[in-house]
Structures are given as structure tokens and as C-alpha cells.
């Protein structure tokens, strides 16, 4: 009894602490130190959120709290209800820890920015929306959080709004998310009309959920989590500042789609079509993103495609009906992906804005802490045994191997795993090793503790998080215990093959062969030709058909063809035949008179 009270109080206290700067800071007189205040707020919130997490870990307490009810109609009520189960209670400390580190980093990274307070406010608003999404028990509150993170993503990607590419990227993010929102609203409407509630726990489990609302949910996840088909916005979102990429587009916002599917997994669990769709879509996304990452040269784009690939892997896990494992991958992925972005931010700032890995090199000696953490992050991403990524990634691939569901998805995922190792190692080799190819007078240093503290904290998290989470949270489904040795070591073998491929390719770049284009390189470099194929033709067709409807259908058809010109067309052939008779000769006319009189007389008699 007391544990639930403590749980609720501490979690709501966390939320209240985060809301304080938004309410109090606009009224404060001294606005010089807002970034540090906001960082300290988030740190306090993180420490407080450890209380409910430990409570849950030790006693297994969960709770659903409903506060106030919006009586929409007499039949349909929408309460303000919070669900504190393992997902929200584990996500809160992780999200707050990652956000704290990113905000601390951003006080250094955005120090020369005139509107730094506004930036921190945007990040804080985003965090509030994301936490509302996590803790929501009904679809209404989840939708509020969903739209909130979408809006803040738009504002933050287009932070430097003088730049044309940033505005395009922000618009792309909003439009692709909107297409996903169609699916979400569809499934919300179905849920409201059939189950008469938007609460997750009140939806009774039918024997077979109809596929249409599940398709809506999968569409929503495709839009928000950048699966193949609605993925171009995620690499374009790298136009925003690096703290934005680290927070939104690697750890928190893009996992909102997967989180939705985790929350609604009882509905998904008994529909094999939807599960297979998730599996195949996830496998395709992970391979496609990994292929595109192989030839990217911008360090942020490589990490963006890596995020996209890991999101595909999470979707594969949902398709295997293992939501808890997907959540584990979300948690571990947040640590090392945010750390990778922060390391890349340090490198970019140190090299005076240089983002191309072809102009980096030898940074191991110049930025030791950053590059060590970059290596740790890449190793965790590859699934090196006993780092954070191993606990989730290896389990996913083992389950995929032993599930006998879909060989094609398995092959794609294994190929993507080896590609992950390849592009991570390529990035590491080109950025850290070798002779420096950077311009010589860049201010390369990491003397500021604002840089090293967040990165080392996240590195610690990358190493320990997998171990800690798996040892304290009992899995709800039994993981596969016995399998042949090749199946058990499949992920590690795929990674090792990827590493071998990367080493071979890097030796090849040193040899003096004349470089030229080839079709595979072109496919990977231009991101599978997806953007030009989809962006122009869709809009052109839509606008063309709109023009045709407006001008051809309405103007031409109704006003002309159904009216005067139509009549003319009908009569035209008869008119053309009969004009030959209009010769003007009297004899022809007398003859036609006689013919018609004879015809009339013959028909009358």
C-alpha cells in the first residue's frame, strides 16, 4: 500500500520538477544562467526518478493512477491516467540521465548561440512531451505526447532557420510524421468505436484483432520511427544542432513509434499478419539503412543511418512478439547512441565545423577521451560481448534464429548486423587513426569538463546498462535456452565478418587503383534513389490530377462537352455528309423536293 503511494508521489514529483523551469524561469529577473539551471533541474529529476525505479525493481509494484475525467460524452470518458509499469518506470531514469548529459554538453556546444535559453526551453518542452507519451495510459494522452514531440522536433530541426536545407528537413520531418499520424488516428477511432474506451487496459482481448487498426498502428510506427517507406526524414533531420540529434533523433523521439507498439502489444499479439508485417518491414528497414550508411561521409549521417538500422531491429523484435526485448534494446541503444552523437559533436566543434570524415584523422592523439568513448560506443553498437548492446542485440538475433518464422527476415537482419560492424569500423578508422587530414589551425581540445563529464557518464552507462537491466528485470517470456552453437554465435560471427570486410576495404583504399563509380556505390550513396523517386513524382501527380479535375473534368467536360460542344460533335458527321448537297443548283433542289414528296406519299399510303 505504501509502496504504491511512494511510487506515485515520486514519479509525479519528477514530472513536476521538470515543469518548474517552464513556469518559473520566464518570471525571473536574472536570465544569465538559465542553461545551468535547467541542467540542474533535469539532474535532480533524474535522481528522484531513481526512487520509483528501485521500488519497481525490488518489489515489482506497478500502478495505474487516474486523476480527473474529461466527460467527453456520457458514454465515453477520457481520464487523465498515468500508467506506472516497468516500461515507464525504466524509461524515466534512462531518458532523464541521457537528457541531463546532453543538456550539460549543450551548455558548451551552444555557448556562442544568442538564443541559448530558448533552445534549452525547446529541449525541456520536448522532454516533457516525451515523458507524457511514456507515462500515458490512454491513447488520448499518448497522442498529446506524440504530437508534442513532433512539434518540438520541427522547431528544433529548423533551429537555424536562415538555412534552406534546415527548413526543408524540418518540413520533411513534419510531413512524414503526419502520414504516420493518419494511421494512429485511424486506430484510435477504431478503438473508440469498438472498445468504447481509450484506456489500454480496458480493451478486452478479442480472439483475433482485425488487421485494419493494427495496420494503422504500424503506419504510425513507420512514420515516427523511420521505417522503410517513411524514412527519409531521419537523415535529413541531422540539419539540426548536434544536441538535438542526440536527444531526439537517436534516443527518445524516434523510439516513440516502437513504444506505441510495445504499449499496444496485446492487440498485436494475436494477429499473425500484423506480426509478419512488422518483422519484414523491420528487416527491410534495418538492411536498407545499413546499406546507405556504408558510403556516407558525413559523420552525423552515418550515426543517423545507424539509428535507423537499430530502429528496424526493434521493429523486428516487435514482429517476434517480444515487446520486453524491444524495450531493452531501446534502453541500451539510448546510452550508446547519445554518446556517439555527443562525441561527434565534440569532434565537429573541435575541427571548426568540419563534419566530413574524409577530412578527419589521427584524432586519437588529439582528443583521447572523446575517441575512446567513440570506440566504446561503436563496440556497444556492434554488439561486442558483455557491453550494453550485446544483451539486447544478441538476444534478438538468437530469438530470430530459433523462432523459425521467416528466413528472409533472418538473412536480412544478419546481413545488416555485419554491415553495422563495417560502417562503424570505417567511421572509427577514418576518424581516429592514420595521419591527420584536418586543417591545421583548428582549436582541437577537450579541456572543458562540460565535454568530458557527460561523455564519460554515458560511456559508463553503455558498459553497465545492459548488465544492470537484465539482472534486475525478470523477462515475461522465456528466452530460448538451447540452440546449436552456430545459432548461438550467429550474431558474433556476422559482426566478425563485417569487421573483416571493413579491414579489407580500408586496405583497398590505400592501394593505387584509379577510383571510379560503380552501380552499388551509386545505389548506396544516393540512398537507394528513394528521395528523388518519391518526392517529385508523388507531388507532381497529385497536383496534376488536381489540375485535371479542376480544368478538364469540371470546365471541359461539364461546361463544354455536356453542353454546346458535345451537341456539335454528335451532329458533325451528319452535317459533313449533308453539306455536299448544298450546291446551289436549282435542279438538285427540285430533285430533293421530289424525293421527299415521293417518300411522304409512299409512307402515307
Amino acid at each position, binding site marked *: 500500500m505504501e509502496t504504491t503511494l511512494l511510487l506515485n508521489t515520486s514519479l509525479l514529483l519528477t514530472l513536476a520538477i521538470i515543469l518548474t523551469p517552464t513556469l518559473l524561469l520566464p518570471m525571473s529577473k536574472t536570465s544569465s544562467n538559465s542553461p545551468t539551471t535547467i541542467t540542474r533541474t533535469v539532474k535532480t529529476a533524474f535522481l528522484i526518478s531513481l526512487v520509483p525505479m528501485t521500488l519497481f525493481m525490488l518489489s515489482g509494484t506497478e500502478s495505474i493512477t487516474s486523476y480527473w475525467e474529461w466527460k467527453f460524452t456520457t458514454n465515453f470518458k477520457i481520464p487523465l491516467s498515468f500508467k506506472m509499469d516497468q516500461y515507464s518506470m525504466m524509461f524515466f531514469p534512462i531518458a532523464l540521465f541521457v537528457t541531463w548529459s546532453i543538456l550539460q554538453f549543450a551548455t558548451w556546444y551552444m555557448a556562442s548561440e544568442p538564443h541559448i535559453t530558448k533552445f534549452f526551453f525547446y529541449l525541456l518542452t520536448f522532454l516533457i512531451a516525451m515523458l507524457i507519451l511514456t507515462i500515458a495510459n490512454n491513447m488520448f494522452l499518448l497522442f498529446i505526447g506524440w504530437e508534442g514531440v513532433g512539434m518540438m522536433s520541427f522547431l528544433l530541426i529548423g533551429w537555424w532557420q536562415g*538555412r534552406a536545407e534546415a527548413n526543408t528537413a524540418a518540413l520533411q520531418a513534419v510531413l512524414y510524421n503526419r502520414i504516420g499520424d493518419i494511421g494512429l488516428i485511424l486506430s484510435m477511432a477504431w478503438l473508440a468505436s469498438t472498445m468504447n474506451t481509450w484506456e489500454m487496459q480496458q480493451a478486452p482481448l478479442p480472439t483475433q484483432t482485425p488487421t485494419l487498426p493494427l495496420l494503422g498502428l504500424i503506419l504510425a510506427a513507420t512514420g515516427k520511427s523511420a521505417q522503410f517507406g517513411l524514412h527519409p526524414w531521419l537523415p535529413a533531420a541531422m540539419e539540426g544542432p548536434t544536441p538535438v540529434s542526440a536527444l531526439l533523433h537517436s534516443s527518445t523521439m524516434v523510439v516513440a513509434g516502437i513504444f506505441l507498439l510495445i504499449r499496444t502489444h496485446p492487440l498485436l499479439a494475436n494477429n499473425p499478419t500484423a506480426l509478419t508485417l512488422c518483422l519484414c518491414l523491420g528487416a527491410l528497414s534495418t538492411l536498407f539503412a545499413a546499406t546507405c550508411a556504408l558510403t556516407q561521409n558525413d559523420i552525423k549521417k552515418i550515426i543517423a543511418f545507424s539509428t535507423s538500422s537499430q530502429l528496424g531491429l526493434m521493429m523486428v523484435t516487435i514482429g517476434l512478439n517480444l515487446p520486453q526485448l524491444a524495450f531493452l534494446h531501446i534502453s541500451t541503444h539510448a546510452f550508446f547512441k547519445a554518446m556517439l552523437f555527443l562525441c561527434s559533436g565534440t569532434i565537429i566543434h573541435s575541427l571548426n*565545423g568540419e563534419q566530413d570524415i*574524409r577530412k578527419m584523422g589521427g584524432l586519437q592523439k588529439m582528443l583521447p577521451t572523446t575517441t575512446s568513448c567513440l570506440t566504446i560506443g561503436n563496440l556497444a553498437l556492434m554488439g561486442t560481448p558483455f557491453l550494453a548492446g550485446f544483451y539486447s542485440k544478441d538476444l534478438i538475433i538468437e530469438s530470430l534464429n530459433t523462432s523459425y518464422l521467416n528466413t528472409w527476415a533472418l538473412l536480412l537482419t544478419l546481413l545488416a548486423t555485419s554491415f553495422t560492424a563495417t560502417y562503424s569500423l570505417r567511421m572509427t578508422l577514418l576518424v581516429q587513426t592514420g595521419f591527420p587530414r584536418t586543417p591545421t589551425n583548428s582549436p582541437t581540445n577537450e579541456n572543458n569538463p562540460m565535454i568530458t563529464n557527460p561523455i564519460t557518464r554515458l560511456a559508463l552507462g553503455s558498459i553497465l546498462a545492459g548488465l544492470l537491466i537484465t539482472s534486475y528485470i525478470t523477462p515475461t517470456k522465456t528466452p530460448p535456452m538451447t540452440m546449436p552453437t552456430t545459432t548461438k554465435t550467429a550474431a558474433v560471427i556476422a559482426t566478425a565478418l563485417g569487421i573483416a570486410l571493413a579491414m579489407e576495404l580500408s586496405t583497398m583504399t590505400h592501394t*593505387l587503383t*584509379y*577510383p571510379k563509380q560503380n552501380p552499388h556505390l*551509386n545505389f548506396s*550513396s544516393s540512398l537507394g534513389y528513394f528521395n528523388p523517386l518519391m518526392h517529385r513524382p508523388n507531388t507532381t501527380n497529385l497536383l496534376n490530377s488536381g489540375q485535371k479535375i479542376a480544368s478538364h473534368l469540371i470546365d471541359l467536360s461539364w461546361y463544354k462537352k455536356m453542353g454546346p460542344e458535345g451537341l456539335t460533335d454528335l451532329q458533325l458527321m451528319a452535317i459533313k455528309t449533308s453539306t455536299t448537297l448544298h450546291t446551289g443548283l436549282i435542279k438538285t433542289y427540285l430533285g430533293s423536293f421530289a424525293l421527299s414528296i415521293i417518300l411522304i406519299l409512299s409512307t402515307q399510303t
Partner: protein
Amino acid sequence: GEPQMAAYLTHQQKVLRLYKKSLRHLESWCIYRDKYRYFACLLRERFDKNKDVKDMVKATELLKAGEEEFWANQHPQPYIFPDSPGGTSYERYECYKIPEWCLDYWHPSEKAMYPDYFAKREQWKKLQRESWDKEIKQLEEETPADGPSTEALPPARKEGHLPPLWWQYVTRPREIPM
């Protein structure tokens, strides 16, 4: 004086532009410096072999063949410097470059922070108003009938006149605003 920019490119300019962009794309292909230097020397030799061709027809044909070879061998993601058009921090600070007429709308307490500038600002604005008609007259006289051929502005011709559009140049924002 210095050579003015004309409205068309000379053959030399075209060849040099081809050389520079092929070197840049070669640099995008060959990441390591020693490999780049090897192929750059080979490319230079290919250009130097034909540098004394006097026949303009043959030279233009060589240039055309060179451009086509460049198009076939270009890098799909060439290296662009961050501040160049298409780079990652191009126009990044454009939203902070506010025009100078906003200074007129500052509050007196804000203007008091920069007293020496605002003391003289009215005189500068008066000077600009006075010389505006003369600048416009000079520009109207000097541009040809069917529009200007280059973007270069002429200098001041008469004694006591200021160069045309000097105010826009003097009050332009910094490259990287504070």
C-alpha cells in the same frame, strides 16, 4: 586597373575551372594524401600535355571531352567545405543577420549602451540620404540599355561623390554574428 569580370567565360577560365573541380572530386575519391598526390600528378600531366594547342576548335573539343569524362567519373558525394554553398554550416547564421534599420527601433536604454555610435548615427544617415540621388543618377547613366552585364558596381567618378550603394556595403552584417 584590375581585370573586370565579364559576362562570359574565357577558354582559359573554363579549362582552369574543369581542372580545379576535377582535382576536388579526385580529393573526394582518394582520401589518403599520398594516393591523391599520385593521381593528381597524373591528372596535371594530362592537362599539361595539351596546354599549347593553338587551334581553338581542337581545344574546345578537348575541353568538351574533358567535361564529359568529369561527369562520368565524378564523386556522388563530393567534399564541400562547411561554409561553401551546399556545406553543412552555410547560411547557418543567416537568421541572426538583422538589417540595420532595426537599430532605429531600439529602446533609449539599449541605445545608451553604445553612445558613441548612436551619437554619430544621425549624421551618417543624413549623409546617406544626401548622396542617394547622386548614386542612383550615376548608376542609371552607367548601366547599358538592356540591363547590367556583371554584378560589379562602378566606383565613384566625380569629386566629392560616394561610390554607389556604399551604405549597403558599410552596414552589411558580420559573416558570423556575435
